[in-house]
């Protein structure tokens, strides 16, 4: 139903979500992100370009991670939102609280700004 692909871009980690992020699949994403955070990741891109659906449970995981990153001065960027999901983000006002980028390449710009 859902697959996660974790990549290492120097100090920046990226997690690509493939498929549906809902009540049944969010725990594995939560576990994956907590693991990255626990091992010191403070620069993280979540690539949603292949994510078909997100439920409120999934949004909650994003929010959790955002809170944790903020508390440690880390940076979380969400990129590649498809139109229906972008709509959800818009309705819920999440567009204003997350760093949103159209793709991974653009997402890396957020880190260039914050570092150095």
């Amino acid at each position: 139903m859902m697959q996660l692909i974790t990549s290492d871009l120097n100090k920046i980690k990226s997690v690509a979500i493939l498929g549906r992020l809902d009540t049944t699949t969010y725990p594995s994403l939560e576990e994956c992100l907590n693991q990255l955070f626990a091992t010191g990741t403070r620069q993280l891109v979540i690539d949603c370009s292949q994510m078909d659906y997100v439920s409120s449970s999934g949004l909650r995981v994003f929010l959790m991670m955002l809170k944790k990153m903020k508390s440690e001065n880390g940076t979380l960027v969400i990129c590649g939102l498809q139109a229906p999901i972008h709509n959800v983000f818009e309705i819920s006002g999440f567009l204003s609280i997350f760093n949103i980028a159209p793709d991974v390449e653009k997402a890396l710009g957020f880190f260039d700004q914050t570092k150095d």
Partner: protein
Amino acid sequence: MKIKSLSFKLSLYILTTVSVTFVVIFLFNLSESRKDALENMKRESYYISQSTAYRIESVLRGAEEIAFNLARLLEKQPGISQMQLEERIKTLVFANPEIFGCCVAYEPYSFFRDSLYYAPYAFHSGDTVSFMQIGNDSYNYFYLDWYQIPRELNQPLWSEPYFDANAGNIMMATYSAPIWHVRNGKPEILAIVTIDIDLQYLSRMVSDIRIFDHGYAFLVSKQGTFITHPVKDFISNETVFTLAEEYNQPYLREAGRDMISGGSGYQEVEPVTRKGDKYLMTYMPIPASGWSVAVLIPKDELYAPVYRLQRLMIALAAAGLFLLLVLISAIARRLTNPVKELAEAAHEIGSGNLEHKVPQFSFHNEITDLANSFRKMQTDLRIHIAAISDATAAREKIESELKIARDIQQGIVPKVFPPFADHPEIDLHAVLDSAREVGGDLYDFFFIDDVHLCFAVGDVSGKGIPASLLMAITRTLLRARTAPDMKPCQITSSINIELCRENDNAMFVTFFIGIVNLKTGQLDYCNAGHNRPWMLDSNGAISQLPQTHGTPLGLFDDMKYGCSSVVLGKGSSVVLYTDGVTEAMNSQGELFGDEQLIEALRACNGAPPKQIISEVYGQTKKFVGIAPQSDDITLLVFQLLDYKK
């Protein structure tokens, strides 16, 4: 017993097979043995009759030779004196105990010119030899068979047996040989020499033959008359043919014909002297006299040893079969007892006693393999049942949690419609259809004062009890924090701050709240990250309440929420919903979506709230079809019929 035990079947099959085999062997053996016995006996009786024939033949040949020698002697000594002749006869008889008597019967006036008869006769009488003249007027031997037939035929021959009342008073047979002399240049018969054989003497030779209990032998003459026979009355009184006639035995007659024509062979004949089985008759000619000897053996006695052997075999076979039966039963029991024990154990285990001990066996074979498999099955079953129980318990726990969540959710939302009977200027209807995993939707509506009606819809992130509890808290906070003259954004902010406390899990609530002034139709609203409601005008126009004023509740306690307002015309409706409607999914994974929602709303132009809800909800359900409902579906429709006076 309906069910035949394995041991019974095993015994039956094996014993039947063995028995049939035995019977076949037995019958074959019986037939062969009988054939053998018959062959042996034929051979033996052939030898017996042959040796008997030889012995009799040698007696007869002896007698013939004596007669021949005497005849030649007398032919060479035509002038022998009476004394010399009589002395010679007496000596001859004395020297040959196997002959009874000897006579030289002269032709009339041949020995003495003045005497018609001259026939000196010497014969055994006890231990001595007696002598007599047999020719006289009352015994005119010239016409007797023993004299006349050889004389006429001009050759020596044996007489039929006859009773001699003259000298010995015994049954006898006589060999007669002519003596020749030359008279006037022509050969003529001078006398007849006779040698008598005591038939008792022959009879003893024959009756010595004893085969089994009732086997016997007899002699017949060349006319078939009995010369010897165990039944004394038959001798010279009966022939083979008279007996065949009397006892209606065509085979005996046939054999008789063969006998008198000098044949030899075997013939089965019915017994005449006793009741019983048939006799095997072996007969053989005595060439010297043309007589025949016959040896008769009762077949039942002939086969008696065979039958005795067969009886012994049957007894042995029966004993063997019995032993086999005992053995098979023992083996079968040994085999089936463990199976029986296993069956009982299986029954016990099957009836629920999983702790029942599966029998242990000391030996090792297929049965122990079965028992081991059985033990493994029992263990697996125990583990499996335990797993099922755990799973069931877990499922029941989840089910009961879901039920609690649903009860919390359903118990907290108002469900009496129409809700405000004393406010005819408005109509309101709502529905909350909980998914199996409760989604945490909520709606509420209440009058703040006589003019201001508050209505709200929310959707808690997550599912189950946590979601339903947060939903209950939100609804409680909504009621608690709402006061007259408060703007929706103030109420929202107040709830948000409260929900942000201790919310480490980042649970959040998307929330829409509207407060409508029934006198003016002004709707103030605040949207905290919720789906934008739709507004239906009385003239059929559809529009969305455009503004959102911040993120969902519970995330950021410093979030500043704003308000928007819109004026509702008479007959306008506001349709609030959660993403359970637009994100309702069918089995192909497609979403119901905004377009279909708008379409459904369009179809309800001017309809009352209950009908709008029924239409939208119905369309959603129809779209989802057989797919399971993944999220709560919530709809709330407020309709302003008229301004409050």
